[in-house]
């Protein structure tokens, strides 16, 4: 669930930044920082779409235990 929280959080944070930008809530001072953060979040989200992190062996071990 850790991973899911991460991408849910990343997605929500990204949406918030986009909303703020659309609403004109972001000043020029913050702009560079926000855009950088948004780029990171987009990268995280994209990675989530195209990678898997679960380990079958670990799950099997837990099933046996």
């Amino acid at each position, binding site marked *: 669930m850790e991973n899911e929280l991460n991408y849910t959080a990343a997605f929500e944070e*990204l949406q918030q930044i986009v909303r703020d930008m*659309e609403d004109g809530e972001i000043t*020029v001072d913050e702009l560079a920082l926000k855009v950088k953060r948004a780029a990171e979040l987009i990268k995280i989200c994209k990675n989530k*779409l195209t990678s898997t992190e*679960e380990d079958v062996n670990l799950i099997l071990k837990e099933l046996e235990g």
Partner: protein
Amino acid sequence: MSENRQIFSLQQVVSSIRKTIEERYQSSYWVKAEMHKLNLYPSGHAFPELVQKENDKIVAQINASIWNHNFQRINKQFIEVVKEPLKEGTTLLLNVKVVFHETFGLSLQILDIDPNYALGELQREREETLKKLQAERLINANQLLDFPLLPKRIAIISADTSKGLSDFMKVLNNNPWNYQFFTMLFQAYLQGDVAAPSIIEQLKRIEKVKQHFDVVVIVRGGGGEVGLSCYNNYELCKAIASFSLPVLTGIGHSTNMTVAELVAFRNAITPTELADFLLQTFHDFSVPVNDARKVLCSSSDRILERANQLFSAETKHYKNSATNYLLESKNSLLLTSQQFKNEAKSLLAHNREHLHFAQKECSNYSNRLFKLNRERIAEYVVQLQLKFINRLGKEQQQLSEMENMVRLMDPKNVLKRGYSITTINGQTIQKNNQAEIGDNITTITFDFELTSTLIKKEENGE
């Protein structure tokens, strides 16, 4: 024991029983009974156990038989109408004949089974399951769960031989957007009586490792549309409805929706459609992310442009203000300098006049003072002359008196009277200028100057 007793062979007895029964039960009867066990043999004959239960207690029980050719016909009819093969544990309406066989004993020979009754029974089971789940408020329990933003870790309940599974996996794995799913197969029977307990068992296993999964899918397909009534099984439907992860079904059939599909978080008609749904959720996540990127770019541009506009407007404003201010300052300075020049000129003129006047004043005053002093000096001169003449007379008188006195005191006058002066070394002989015996002393008289040698010296007694 009587001696004239009649003894029958066993065959005579059972033959008699058979004859009696055959006579008594000549026609067939419709009987409602639960088929407890089917007991299908490889020969194709089936020897079901029929029971009647009241409050879960068996109150009647008898063995039955279905001969191969009857079984084939009945089963085919069942599958056509009920979409289920004959299965154990269901209540059926049977057309039976009572038979007695010398070696196998009493049994009911099943000639036919009414598929429509069975269909009704299945419908009844479905209704009952629904009613029970409704009463337990479980009907939409699974649907009320939060669906994960990205259902990427999927526990699949299926069979590795299922065409449905391969369809499902093909769509997931060959998606052109390179979305990655993590899947793990939990093998189960997917149809028939064995399916419900098998699927429940796998749900229990998944529950143990549910932190590794986002959703559970049950996929099936390609196995025909027979044997799906298990998806109306109360225990199975309850397990699905109350499962802690969203359960998605893609069972693949065209008949009425089963209760399992009804209570699942989401039902897809086919495994392929289910996979498409999962991909769609990835799209739903991906599209806003892409949109976010676009919005970020356009918004950034907009914010920068706005800032730029404000800045250039501000710059222009500043330039104008500065120019105006400079011009104003210059004018003001010019004015002040002109004023200063005028002021200075007039002040200078004024001062010059003042100075001129003062100079004149000074000159007059000094002339006056000069004149005054000159007069005063002239006066002093007169006075001085008077005083001088006066004083001169007095001084002349005093002087002549003193001249007389001096003349009287001149040693010559004394010397004239016979006195002399004795000196040594030019000075009179006194205590502090003494003459010793042998010294030359000079004696001055009025007419002579005598030099003598001292031969005697006596101190004056006075």
